[in-house]
């Protein structure tokens, strides 16, 4: 608005109300003050409007991605057939999440986001991106590790990678990715997890970070998980038992000081 001074007192008053500026009557002595306040308010409003928010674009994409869910059928020939299905159902979760995975394997929108290769199985780019590579199987596992991200590798990826990533596979559905964000800040991560096979089984939010070696189990299991659930439990029990063993051993050591008192 130009020429604030040309406006009538009533118009100034209306503008002040519009910007939510507390004011009194607009008289000769108060007018310059209010004009100045209006000028500042207008300049500030203009600044906030023009400032684009990068996140906005991101979200928009997500919305788009959400629609993908139903389209994708488990194309993965390698992975358990079930993978595709379980994946699909988790999609709705995905979309909430900041969506990302919506595309089981074909994430077109990924590109914007920091994303990862939409290509479900052939994502050579993966290594560079620190993001979620959709590459389901083709990517060499090495890349996976480096990225520290969720590669979505649907089934073929060796589990160890999975763990390292702080993985997101679970996250696909359970979005618990807090881990992911560390360092990566991917919003896309959810979609990274697309590995449908793993996602269904991973519903657990905590990443399976347990020893990477443990993950070796091939996800050949038909259940659609990268690592069978029973194996995960077994590993957990082993680790818990190990810790307990250490703990009990520690206790016995404490008793030795008492002996000295004699």
């Amino acid at each position, binding site marked *: 608005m130009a020429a604030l001074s040309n406006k009538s007192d009533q118009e100034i008053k209306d503008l002040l109300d519009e910007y939510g500026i*507390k004011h*009194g009557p607009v008289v000769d002595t108060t007018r310059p*003050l209010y004009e100045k306040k209006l000028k500042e308010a207008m300049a500030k409003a203009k600044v906030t409007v023009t400032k684009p928010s990068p996140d906005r674009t991101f979200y928009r994409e997500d919305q788009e991605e959400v629609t993908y869910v139903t389209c994708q059928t488990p194309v993965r020939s390698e992975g358990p057939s079930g993978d595709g299905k379980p994946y699909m159902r988790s999609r709705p979760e995905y979309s909430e999440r900041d969506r990302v995975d919506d595309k089981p394997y074909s994430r077109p929108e990924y590109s914007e986001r920091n994303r990862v290769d939409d290509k479900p199985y052939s994502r050579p780019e993966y290594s560079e991106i620190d993001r979620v590579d959709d590459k389901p199987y083709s990517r060499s596992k090495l890349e996976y590790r480096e990225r520290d991200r969720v590669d979505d590798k649907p089934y073929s990826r060796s589990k160890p990678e999975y763990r390292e990533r702080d993985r997101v596979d679970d996250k696909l559905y359970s979005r618990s990715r807090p881990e992911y964000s560390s360092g990566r800040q991917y919003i896309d991560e959810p979609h990274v997890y697309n590995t449908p096979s793993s996602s269904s089984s991973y519903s657990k939010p905590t990443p399976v970070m347990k020893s990477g070696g443990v993950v070796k189990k091939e996800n050949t299991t038909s259940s659609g998980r990268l690592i069978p659930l029973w194996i995960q439990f077994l590993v957990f029990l082993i680790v818990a038992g190990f810790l307990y063993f250490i703990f009990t051993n520690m206790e016995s050591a404490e008793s030795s000081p008492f002996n000295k008192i004699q």
Partner: protein
Amino acid sequence: MSSTSQKHKEFVAEPMGEKPVNALAGIGEVLGKRLEEKGFDKAYVVLGQFLVLKKDEELFRDWLKDTCGANVKQQGDCYGCLREWCDSFL
């Protein structure tokens, strides 16, 4: 004990009557002269402005700064002085 000046105490003790604008707390010789040039030659005129601004602190402070260039402390002193006077006599 509030940190009000002697000037403040004197001003709020009685109705201002025809006191000059210099009598206001926070308004010294320089600021007083600037206010007089703008037409605010008496304390009650500044009081009038204070009331027209609905006794709002932020508005009054901004106005004082724009009109005579008062700093934050001077603005606060003048505002406090007028507010207390109004509480007692208005």
